[in-house]
């Protein structure tokens, strides 16, 4: 067992464990924090795979921006306490079982593949910022531009949904 494998296993355990903790923890705040741990673990994987740019972006965008937004909302709503009143254990059990079965089915199908395909670890320059940047602004300029539509609509959405409507307020 070399060091790469060891790090891989370590990061994997960390990711899976914190993911499990995330769905298991009762307080949403804890969930958010656990999820951030997962993101860190995944970023670790990215580094292991020599995708440094993604590793950084993952931390900045996901852990930094998005999760903070989440945390912000949770805090705003004061949901840090126990919020799910009655738990339907049977439904949860069924959920876990069916999710697990799905995993089993897929994994058993995957395990049937007998060709061993290796993953290039720690080397290769594809994930470096230069190659990504060239690729993105040369070949992927179209999706890049079009994503703006996505953000525009998200923006409008935030306005339409988030803004308080005086007219409507007055009417009611």
């Amino acid at each position: 067992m070399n060091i790469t494998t060891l790090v891989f296993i370590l990061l994997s355990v960390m990711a899976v464990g914190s993911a499990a903790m995330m769905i298991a923890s009762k307080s949403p705040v804890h969930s958010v924090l656990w999820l951030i741990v997962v993101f860190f673990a995944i970023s670790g994987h990215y580094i292991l795979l020599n995708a440094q740019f993604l590793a950084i972006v993952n931390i900045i965008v996901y852990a930094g921006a998005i999760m903070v937004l989440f945390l912000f909302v949770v805090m705003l709503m004061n949901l840090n306490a126990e919020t799910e009143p009655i738990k339907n254990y049977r439904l949860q059990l069924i959920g876990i079982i069916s999710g697990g079965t799905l995993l089993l089915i897929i994994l058993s199908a995957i395990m049937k593949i007998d060709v061993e395909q290796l993953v290039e670890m720690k080397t290769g320059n594809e994930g470096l910022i230069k190659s990504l940047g060239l690729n993105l602004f040369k070949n992927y300029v179209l999706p890049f531009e079009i994503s703006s539509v996505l953000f525009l609509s998200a923006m409008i959405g935030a306005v339409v949904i988030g803004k308080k409507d005086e007219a409507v307020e007055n009417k009611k």
Partner: protein
Amino acid sequence: MNAIILTAIWGVVMMFSGVFFKNKSIPKYLAIIGLLIAVIANTAEFSIAKPIVHINIHDMLRFEKYNLLFIDVAFLCTMVYFLLSGTEIEKVGPHAGEYFALIFFVLCGVSIVATFNTLLMFFIGIEIMSIPLYILTGSEKRNLKSNEAALKYFLMGAFSTGIMLMGIAFVYGGNPNGSFFIDKIQLGSGQMPVMIALGLLFMLVSLSFKVSAAPFHFWTPDVYDGAPTVFTSFMSTIVKAAGFFAFIRLFEHSFGTMHDQWQKLIVIITVSTLLIGNVTAVFQQSVKRMLAYSSIAQAGFMLLALFALNDKAKEGILLYTAAYSLATIGLFGILTKMEDFTIDGFNGLAKQQPLLAFVATVCLLSLTGVPLTAGFQSKFFMLMAAVDNGHQFWLVIVAVLFAAISAYYYFRVIQAMYFKESSQPSVTVIHSISSQFKIMLIVIAILISIIGIYPEIVIGWMYR
């Protein structure tokens, strides 16, 4: 390309229109003008066969005649929708310009999913189509039903996005070419590789979700019911048809050569969709909800195109888009004018509003698939495609039997309008009915029958 650029730009224009024009109905006219421009530009593109501005898109989109024709059909249906229900859009909330902008963004997404050539564009297109819809669903902020619908739609939509991405990942992983281009997916011969199969399954599930095929349809009735009626009209027609178009395009180009290996999945989904859609619709009391279920049932029929995956199916999906959209837009347009959405609310409509009742009848007949209506032609082409496919013939028979059942719930409305008396003497239609609305209704009825009699008005373009 023209369509994508113009709709994106016009979306921004619409966004500002709300700020710069105080008159509430300006956005509507602006939207109609914009759409008109988009339609003309798109038509020009596919008749002259080159876009106005040339951008190197690295083959990420393909502007073939068929795809552009679909965009045209979708845009024209939207035009009808604007003309019929534009006034209702203004009434939903104070952000009329924004609503139109969102619809234009959706149309941009529609154009993308009609022409995508890589999985990336496909994914982005689907998201551009979906995210504005989440917003539109929740646009009645004070209406708890609207809230609920938006929440459900959003959560489940995001969930299905995750599933779709997993599918894309597996397809990518299973493709030895390591490419996202849908025509460069190497399937090999013989048994489908496991990774490709997994990718296909995940994508199938998420796309089934988007087109509300059973058993992934559960969001549909609730969301269609909860969303503002005027937006339900849009999302259950054009957007859904676009979803189908993407579905078929994706599966034909990436997995088409292994069609026989996954056809059985489509059969299962088709049958359960037909069953659940038609049977559940039977007992609905609310016309709006009934139409939601009926949209599931119609999706079952459209899935036949995926089952067949041949030329007839492609023609059929075009016809279906036009026929189903027109009829549903017409019905929802009438529904917006009704006070009571239950079937009993339609009692005796024929006496008070003969025109409304007549057009509603035409639309319902079209949905049932009675000859001389567009609905018949679309079903006819679907059946023809499925029969031509040559496999699983029984599926076709099941499909028509369910079509016969569908007559049951569609005709309940007709019966209510024509053969039953209204329980209260007062008018069942409260909202004012403008003459423009009436004219548009007549236009819809005429369009439905013209397509019903001469479907080549739509599909003939493919041969010209």
